[in-house]
């Protein structure tokens, strides 16, 4: 019941916003629908706390400790981003960058995008997960090119082609998985259901499953933004509207990584050795190091934080690749705190570039003088994402680092150097942007600051104290990931 509600609300919201056209209250309606989705997700979470894992709709949907917190997180960030987008898009309209027809497209696609991500997370069927992931690309591609500038069209085309080709590899992986599972489970619907696949994972044919995993990793890895499949990511983040950058970075990357981790669990069962883990560690470390070195070369503020997302996805992929209860726990925690922190950063970055009229970091100066809240929001967000204690990112990175020292000491220097380089690059660029003489102007609408500080407060809380039921979920999910 609650599962249907979680999926139904954004779907109806998307259709409603598309049909009614752009009205004065469209932004409020968008936020309201997102709030309703969040309430439904909270109810669902309550149900899972009380009754444990469950399936729905002839086993096509399911929820377990691994996806329940991602559903709650997705619904929360989608809601706060909708709050942020309300004044942000008004200001964009005021500045004449958007008209009513495009805002209608924007609001409707925003809801459908939320729907697609939630469907990815809740679907028990690998094939439906694939369909929803492609759907998430299709709904955002027209949002990346929303401003219709040459650069945004180029970014959207790149995003569309690279992600479609990438995800086509994942479809081939899914077909191979079905090919292997069909021998054990028989033809028909059940051979693609995660719950059934997990039950028979030790009987699956190892050669087919390992080949399937390579294709699934390449396919979904493109959407995670793993190096060298990351080319679309900085462009799509820099050229699209900022609320879309926030949800792409904070949510879509998590969802794609979720698909990779689900496949990994299956393959580990079939192979009995750490084939998938080694691949993920390799890709994770490569993404972390390459992204860290690209950070210092960036001139555009949104591109820089997009590279920072690649870096953090690298850390999480590496953590899941190492495996074991502590590393998997750290990976789950890092997914949560990265998503909250990065979206908060994009909120402040969005308003900062509206105030200064540019995304070029050299032209953004003295944010604190003109608007202390945006300036300090950016400083705190950057410190949090760089892993400063007492923020939650520190906790998870510390756990990843200590596990790596213990089990894979060769990886430690790479991790430390990459984190150090990232710190120097981001901190060195953020500092002149917030202090000194200001270049900022006043905005026609008051900026949205509640979401920024709400997110940062949650990240701070997770660094100091993690609520017991959350710990319990992370533990159960970590035990499942292994």
């Amino acid at each position, binding site marked *: 019941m609650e599962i249907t509600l979680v999926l139904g609300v954004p779907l109806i919201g998307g259709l409603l916003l598309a049909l009614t056209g752009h009205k004065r209250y469209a932004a409020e309606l968008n936020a309201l629908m997102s709030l309703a989705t969040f309430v439904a997700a909270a109810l669902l979470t309550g149900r899972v706390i009380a009754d444990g894992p469950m399936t729905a709709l002839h086993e096509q949907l399911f929820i377990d400790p691994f996806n329940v917190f991602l559903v709650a997180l997705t619904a929360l960030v989608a809601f706060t981003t909708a709050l942020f987008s309300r004044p942000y898009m008004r200001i964009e309209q005021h500045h004449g960058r958007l008209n009513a027809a495009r805002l209608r497209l924007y609001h409707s696609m925003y809801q459908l995008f939320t729907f697609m991500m939630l469907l990815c997370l809740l679907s028990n069927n690998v094939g439906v997960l694939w369909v929803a992931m492609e759907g998430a690309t*299709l709904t955002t591609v027209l949002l990346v090119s929303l401003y219709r500038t040459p650069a945004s069209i*180029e970014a959207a085309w790149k995003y569309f082609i690279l992600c479609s080709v990438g995800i086509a590899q994942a479809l081939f992986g899914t077909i191979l998985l079905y090919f292997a599972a069909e021998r054990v489970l028989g033809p028909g619907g059940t051979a693609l259901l995660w719950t059934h696949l997990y039950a028979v994972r030790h009987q699956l044919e190892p050669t087919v499953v390992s080949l399937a995993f390579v294709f699934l990793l390449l396919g979904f890895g493109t959407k995670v933004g793993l190096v060298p499949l990351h080319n679309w990511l900085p462009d799509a983040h820099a050229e699209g509207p900022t609320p879309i950058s926030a949800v792409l970075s904070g949510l879509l990357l998590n969802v794609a990584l979720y698909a990779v981790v689900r496949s990994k669990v299956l393959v580990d069962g079939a192979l009995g050795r750490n084939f998938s883990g080694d691949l993920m560690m390799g890709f994770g470390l490569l993404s972390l190091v390459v992204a860290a070195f690209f950070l210092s070369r960036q001139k555009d503020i949104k591109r820089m934080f997009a590279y920072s997302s690649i870096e953090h996805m690298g850390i999480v992929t590496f953590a899941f690749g190492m495996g074991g209860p502590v590393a998997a726990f750290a990976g789950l925690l890092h997914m949560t705190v990265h998503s909250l922190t990065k979206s908060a950063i994009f909120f402040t970055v969005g308003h900062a570039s509206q105030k200064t009229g540019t995304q070029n970091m050299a032209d953004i100066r003295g944010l604190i003088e003109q608007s202390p809240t945006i300036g300090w929001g950016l400083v705190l967000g950057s410190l949090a994402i760089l892993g400063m204690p007492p923020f939650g990112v520190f906790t998870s990175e510390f756990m990843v680092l200590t596990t790596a020292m213990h089990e894979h000491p060769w990886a430690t220097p790479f991790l430390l150097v990459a984190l150090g380089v990232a710190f120097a690059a981001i901190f060195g660029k953020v500092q002149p942007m917030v202090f000194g003489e200001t270049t900022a102007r006043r905005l026609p609408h008051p900026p949205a600051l509640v979401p920024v500080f709400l997110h940062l407060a949650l990240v701070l809380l997770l660094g100091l104290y993690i609520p017991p039921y959350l710990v319990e979920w992370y533990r159960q999910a970590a035990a499942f990931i292994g």
Partner: protein
Amino acid sequence: MSLANQIVNLLAALLLLIAFAMLSQRRILTLIKLLAWQGGALAASTAIVAYSTGQPHLYFSAGLTVALKVGLIPWVLHRLIDRLNVRWDIETLINIPATMLIGIGLVIFAFALATPISQMASVFTRSTLGIALASVLLSFLMMIVRRKAVPQVIGFLAMENGLFFAATSATYGMPLVVELGVALDVLVGTFIFGIFFFHIREQFDSLDIRHMEKLKQD
């Protein structure tokens, strides 16, 4: 080998041949025709697998393939070409003989990759999985070497054809809900591509991807 089996193998060979023909073709109109033919071969092989295995939902899948990939999508592309008035010959990044040689290498690679799987497959699927993978990789190559937006999209659609062939001939079809979802995604994707053609031409006065190199990698 039964007759049905032989026909499926013949159609698989045809699919691969069409993939090569696309790789060597310079004219956009012919490319669209080839795409429709490839869809036809795919539908025929799906129907034969449906007949010989007695799985009714594969008939539905074959019908869907005919409607979408032989009918609607080529027609939409044709209309777009007319509206945009782009009938020029395509330039490629690498000359065509070299592309063909790379293509042959890819086919060998695909077969080598699929061999261990083919050995444990049923009689039906022995050679088809390799061919499906080969045509996916050939379409991939086509997307890489073509500079214009329209052939890139045709390459993408040909890749979907290869994937569908893998799904229907190698595994007797995915569950219906998945096939419907994939078909819907391809359809929506084609329409979005269509919208994009107009945006790209409006902004760059050309459908040449070379103009889109402002966002350099750094």
